[in-house]
């Protein structure tokens, strides 16, 4: 069946490397003709692998890729109507600018006049007229990048793939090139699939952003969707600055966090459901107030910038204040120990007592991905249980409910996992893989040496990549009957 709406369809594509690791894990993505789609994610998230599968340099282990409804999963790259702009330009050093750009056209055996016309046109599009006979090594990084783009678009591909094309340029040049790329996309009408790790670049350029992490697509949406309504903590944390907190959805349109209740606009989470709450620092209103006499609030708001109405307010003390050019960025500590990042055009010096509020529509509620660590396990002799390739002691009252050989499920609360400085002291060893600050504690992902993930809530400060020992007290291990 032909679906002409989509120019590229990626259906359930997985890519497993020889070492068994999945670079892509069941990825599906549809791109419309003429769209500017950005694949965004940290390094090693699989974004480049996805692009290379579309270009044909790598073949998906499973799943298929369609171009205009036609299966191209196994088509070699030279037979795909797709061209790539490489991260390090990959210009041919033995050819001059003209011959580099004309490379694809000459292979198509076009007549000389057409080639000259189209090469000149392409060089004009990228603003490199008069550079035809220059040696590519004599060009600056930005110029080489333009030639690389010209070399790709001169073939009038159905889809242009760009693999972090601006990563090697300095900041100023990158900003200029971003605008030019956007212009080019509008003018040429070619579908762009753009890979980057720079979230600002992704938000600036794209019609749609695909956020990836660990080989999986986290979220697909317009830049505003991605920014304002992240679906999980990873996206909220990766895109822009954010305050991420544990919360409880009391009922529709009512959420509790920071030990207070707030109105919000989210529905459908059920009642008393644990959730993650995201508040962008620029969405928090801040004013000088000691919180004791709310009627005085107006005195400190001469510009009338604080919304009036029945909003829940909360109070704290400014801990730090940094000037960021356009705004000030402040860390505010509430009396009950939660830390908030607030951005405002006004300066509130450290030590100032302030009040804060956020509009209901600026509170983003997300379903929690998990409430506790959960592992498949098997009961052993002597009241021990085996999971994560280790035997663990469990409390007697847990152990006596099962007999050896039973399949059980182990549940461990995040805060009940102990991390040790000396990795040898732990039953398991691992590495801090991902850190999420949740206002009053850190939520860590520890990747064990066997590649399993354990989630830990802690007040201790760890760094990304720290080696840790993992210890779990017998009383912290809950057992549930497995399937």
């Amino acid at each position, binding site marked *: 069946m032909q679906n002409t709406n989509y120019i590229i369809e990626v259906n359930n594509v997985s890519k497993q490397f020889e070492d068994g690791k999945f670079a892509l894990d069941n990825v599906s993505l549809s791109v419309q003709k003429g769209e500017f789609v950005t694949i965004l994610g940290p390094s090693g998230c699989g974004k480049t692998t996805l692009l290379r599968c579309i270009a044909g*340099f790598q073949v998906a282990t499973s799943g298929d890729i369609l171009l205009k409804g036609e299966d191209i999963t196994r088509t070699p790259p*030279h037979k795909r109507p797709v*061209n790539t702009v490489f991260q390090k330009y*990959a210009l*041919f050093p033995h050819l001059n600018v003209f011959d580099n750009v004309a*490379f694809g056209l000459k*292979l*198509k055996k076009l007549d000389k006049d057409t080639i000259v016309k189209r090469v000149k046109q392409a060089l004009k599009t990228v603003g490199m007229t008069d550079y035809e006979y220059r040696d590519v090594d004599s060009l600056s990084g930005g110029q080489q990048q333009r030639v690389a783009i010209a070399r790709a678009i001169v*073939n009038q591909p159905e889809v242009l793939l760009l693999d972090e094309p601006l990563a090697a340029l300095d900041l100023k040049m990158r900003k200029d090139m971003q605008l030019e790329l956007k212009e080019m996309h509008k003018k040429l009408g070619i579908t762009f699939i753009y890979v980057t790790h720079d979230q600002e670049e992704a938000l600036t350029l794209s019609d749609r952003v695909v956020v990836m992490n660990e080989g999986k697509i986290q979220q697909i949406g317009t830049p505003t969707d991605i920014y304002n309504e992240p679906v999980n903590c990873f996206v909220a944390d990766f895109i822009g600055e954010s305050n991420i907190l544990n919360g409880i959805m009391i009922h529709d349109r009512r959420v509790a966090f920071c030990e207070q209740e707030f109105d919000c606009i989210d529905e459908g989470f059920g009642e008393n459901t644990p959730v993650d709450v995201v508040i962008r620092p620029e969405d928090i209103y801040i004013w000088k107030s000691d919180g004791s006499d709310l009627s005085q609030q107006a005195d400190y708001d001469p510009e009338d910038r604080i919304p009036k109405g029945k909003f829940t307010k909360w109070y704290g003390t400014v801990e730090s204040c940094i000037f960021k050019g356009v705004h000030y960025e402040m860390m505010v500590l509430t009396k009950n120990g939660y830390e908030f990042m607030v951005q405002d055009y006004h300066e509130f010096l450290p030590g100032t007592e302030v009040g804060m509020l956020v509009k209901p529509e600026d509170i983003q509620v997300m379903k929690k991905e998990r409430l506790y660590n959960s592992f498949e396990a098997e009961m052993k002799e002597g009241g021990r249980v085996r999971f994560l390739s280790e035997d663990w002691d469990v409390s007697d009252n847990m152990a006596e409910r099962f007999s050896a050989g039973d399949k059980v499920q182990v549940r461990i609360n995040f805060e009940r996992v102990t991390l040790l400085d000396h990795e040898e002291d732990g039953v398991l060893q691992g590495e801090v893989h991902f850190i999420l600050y949740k206002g009053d504690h850190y939520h860590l992902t520890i990747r064990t040496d066997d590649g399993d993930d354990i989630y830990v809530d802690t007040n201790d400060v760890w760094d990304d990549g720290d080696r840790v020992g993992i210890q779990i007290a017998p009383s912290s291990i809950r057992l549930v009957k497995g399937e």
Partner: protein
Amino acid sequence: MNKLTAIFGSRRTWAWPYVLFLVLFVVLPLLLIFVYTFTDPQGHFTLRNFLQFFQTSEAVNTFIYSLAIALLTTIICLLLGYPAAYIMATAELKTPAVMAMLFILPMWINFLLRTIATVELFNMFSIPLGEGALLYGMCYDFLPFMIYPIYNTLQKMDKSLIEAAHDLGANGREVFAKVILPLSMPGIYSGIIMVFMPTVSTFAIAELLTRNKITLFGSLIQRAFGEGGLQMWNYGAALSLIMLIIIGLTSFFGNNDDAADQKGGLL
């Protein structure tokens, strides 16, 4: 004392022993060859030595034959060495370094020993020595010198260039012809020079592998100095100069190409 430190601390001072070495063992011999070429045994200026070479058809034929053998050796080495280098540099071998090492390994042993061993091998299997054996021996001895610079260039080549060519519509053959081959030219030049130069002047391999049946230009020079007595030194010098000019021209041809800017390994 300070003066002494200044003298021994300066890099210029440390260069002097090398300058002396170069003058004694490179410049002076070259000058001597030049002087001997244009003089007779009595020390008078003459062009007779050159004329003698051009008038002796045996000498000219040997010269042409030597060039032909050297050329043939170079071509065979290139044809055998390029694919080997290419496979080592591009194929996903688990141990490309070990393979490169194995190709280089014979170079650890003196080539005379290897050549004598080759002679014994030929005798063992009763293969007659002669032109075939000579070519075999030369290729065997010089193949690593061809493989290594080409392997080096290919290995350093940015693999994304190959992907870019594929991406722009080139099939395997076109990628090779339009990207890989032109980009490996510096390595090929180096390889050619590394093989051609020593093969033009070789004589020991020829003597051993042909039992003196085939005379190469190198042997001619060696005989002029070794067997002809003092009066033949001038003639030998002239032959040496002619060979130097030929070798000089080859390296000039190699170095002059701008592709050779990106050095191909050994040179």
